[in-house]
């Protein structure tokens, strides 16, 4: 029973950490972007302020049941996936609830939130929301292909569908998967451009074009909760990439408090580095149209993915 209590405590801690990290990263990116564009920009903790403001709004506008539950779906997806992703390799404090973090389950669970949000956005009746959703879904068909190719390549190469095992393999062999299957990594990296929806793939929210896309009609507690969920999600994606390709963080042999903190530090460095890729790419690229985005993903990234898969098989 003690074990369970520890796990629950760990789970809550993980969630909070993921939330904090995600929000902070978002703030930092806002700041950096502003600097690049020669603006002063908000402070890095601006996202927290926004959240506080949203959550403390007195009046909230609800657009019916699906609109009401949309944030719930997002939170469910975020937290559930978070629970299944190993944050630190073999560390008790960040429980691996995952019975090995099954990749296929995670792939599908990640859609859960988007689906809920899409339905909620649909119910609001705002055409911009629906357009945003269709764009998002269409683009998803684009970037999932290289992403899945990369994942299948990993699964095939190492005969496992578990993230934990993949991390363990990297830990034991000392070689990150980025080196043992670079093509798969590249494919996944390209896919991540779409996943983070920074320019040129910011066609879903498409500021100034679709208002804010699916989010258009949400405000107050709803938008606040959605933002929290989204931040957790950003952290999840980054951690997933790090776990899969960059060797993960943490050391199963040392689980002391200092080792854990060091692990978190490593994780933060790795994730932040990774995060900068789409952000940098976004700084220099104008927005694609949806079909261009899809075509983009079906081009080189998919080819790389196929090469990666062939690489893995032979």
């Amino acid at each position, binding site marked *: 029973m003690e074990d369970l209590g520890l796990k629950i405590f760990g789970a809550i801690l993980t969630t909070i950490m993921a939330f904090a990290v995600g929000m902070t990263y978002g703030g930092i990116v806002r700041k950096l972007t502003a600097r690049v564009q020669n603006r002063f920009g908000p402070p890095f903790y601006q996202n927290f302020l926004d959240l506080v403001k949203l959550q403390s*709004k*007195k*009046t*909230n*506008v*609800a*657009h*019916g049941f*699906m609109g009401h539950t949309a*944030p*719930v779906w997002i939170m*469910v997806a975020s937290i*559930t996936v978070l629970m299944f992703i190993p944050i630190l390799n073999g560390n008790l404090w960040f429980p691996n*609830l995952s*019975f*090995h973090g*099954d990749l*296929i*389950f995670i792939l*599908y*669970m990640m*859609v*859960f939130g988007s*689906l809920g949000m899409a*339905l909620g956005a*649909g*119910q*609001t*009746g*705002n*055409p911009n929301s*629906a*357009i945003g*959703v*269709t*764009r998002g879904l*269409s683009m*998803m*068909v684009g970037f*999932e*292909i290289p992403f*899945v*190719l990369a994942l*299948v390549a990993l699964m095939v190469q190492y005969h*496992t*569908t*578990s993230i934990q095992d993949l991390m363990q393999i990297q830990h034991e062999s000392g070689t990150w998967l980025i080196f043992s299957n670079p093509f798969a990594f590249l494919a996944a990296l390209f896919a991540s451009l779409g996943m983070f929806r920074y320019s040129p793939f910011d066609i879903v929210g498409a500021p100034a074009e679709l*208002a804010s896309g699916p989010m*258009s009609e949400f405000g*107050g*507690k*709803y938008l606040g909760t959605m933002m929290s969920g989204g931040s957790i999600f950003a952290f999840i994606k980054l951690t997933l990439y790090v776990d899969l390709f960059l060797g993960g963080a943490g050391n199963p042999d040392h689980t002391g408090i200092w080792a854990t903190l060091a692990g978190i530090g490593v994780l933060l460095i790795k994730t932040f580095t990774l995060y900068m890729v789409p952000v940098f790419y976004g700084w220099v690229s104008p927005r694609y*149209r*949806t*079909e*261009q985005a*899809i075509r983009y993903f079906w081009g080189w990234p998919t080819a790389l993915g*196929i090469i990666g*898969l062939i690489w893995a*098989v032979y």
Partner: protein
Amino acid sequence: MNLFFIILLILFSSAILAFISNRIVRGSSGIIAFIGITAASILFFTRLSIGNTYSFTLGGIQMQFGLNSFTYLFAIIVLGLGVLASLYSIQYMKGKERLGYFYFNFVLTILGMVGIIFSQDFITFFIFWEIMTWSSYLIVIYNGYSSSKVGIKYMIFSALGAYAMLTAIVSIKGIYGTFMIKDAIAAGAFNFTDHFYIPILLLIGFAVKAALMPLHVWAPKSYSMSPMSFTAIFSGAMSKMGILGMGLVLTSIYSHASPEVSVYSLILKQVLGWLGGITAVMATIYALIQTDAKKLLAYSSIAQLGYIVVGLSTGTKLGVMAALFLAVVHAIFKGTLFMVAGAVERQAGTTDMTKVSGLIRKMPYTFFAALLSIIALAGVPPLGGFVGKWMLYESLITESNNYFLVIVVFFSSTAAFLYSYRFLFGLFLGQEEKETEHVKEAPLTMVIPMLILALLLIVTGLYPGILFEPIAHGMEYLGYSHVNWDMSVLTNIWGEQTNMSYIFSLIGIVFVVVFIFITLKGYKGTRNVGTKEISTSGEIPLEHENLTYQMDFFKPFERAAAPLYKRSMNKIWNDIGNALEAVFNFTRKIYTGNGQTYALFVIIFLVILLIFKDSLFAN
């Protein structure tokens, strides 16, 4: 009298009664059909047990009825869905014309399927197969002549399949001297060494019903043109008869193929798998450009059947299990979805998604059923659909090493999100139409079957084991040994597991917690508004305006995937059909109408025969 006959007789007599009774009391047919099917089901599930057989002779042919654990699985689908769909049908069909005709064929179709399930020999199998086919054909054309071309197409392809099957059946008789399915398998009819055409022809026959590419072109319209209460069975149960046959044949091939011909069975695996995969992809991308919800679902059915075929084609334990699991789950959610479409059609008058929107407030229960089914369809955890998808992927990756096929299937199932969303959004979300103001929730007898099915999806997600049990027995009947299963833990052969009840409780807890949080927080300050109250550039749309985004929903995707839309199988078949008709038209020109020409034919024929008489009529 034997129980098999009694069940068939109950169904048959209720078909006849339904036909007659409508002339006496209008609208009573539906109730009679429902009672008949229910009675048959009760009898089936209470009195009949696996292993019962009954032999008899008809027309000089030894025949046998029986029930084995493999067919029992399909009996669950057919009878379960049959009872619910007929209950649903009572209200759905109310007030329509020719109800006697409809229910007669409705019950006959079920009779046909039950007969197929009972058959232990090919002849009864074929007889019931054909009964099922023509009775369903009669329902397909029920809606009128506009759809009769559709009916013809359905019938042509069904006949193509059925006759391919018949050829194989009589060949088995000719070569192995038996019509019994078990004996034929034991005699090696499917062992692929010689007479390899037998299993191929059988597979073609089943592939038609399973709407496998390139034999699927009948399906989209046939599914969408029939009354929805029937399509629930049509797509949910009848397509599974094809799966039943394919399962039987494929597993026999895989388990009986001798080593020296294993390369052929490998080719077969690949061909079937890829056909299934391509079916899934093509049907999906066609589904997402539809504007009629019924057609969307029809294409989606084809795509789902493609997954099932992929699963069957692997021939591995997990793959076949995934296929059979998906078959059951598909029956459940596609049955529900067609019922949903039917409910919308009945209440709102149309299922054209460009004309209907915002029904969620009007038909909340229907929406709920649709939502659960769509989640299952998309394969999103934690419902039953995910379990099937998980097993399918795992089997492809871990067991049959068919990696690129995984990608194809995955592409299809990702694109499936698009039409899933389209369906829910198009019918239930968006702004409310003025024309649909009067719409009310569907009657109770329609809602109940939908909700029962939707709840079944939750159960199959939480405890997939209740389906694994009959599936495992069925697979053991087919020749797989030691089929392991757990109540709610999925395991692949690398030993990795996914615990469904665990996932389920996690999602449940988080959902409830966050839901309570979001509901209670600032509960008083929450203002519920209608769909017209939106912030479009600071203006509120007028009452009569509808801003819902419905036209060209996935146009960008369509443009991106344009090459895939270029060649439609339908067009190819139409071209073939037209070419054949031209040939036929040319052929009949032989009958010139001139008597003298005919006389000339006679003489020419005479001369030819006389010239070749020695070679033709040698002793």
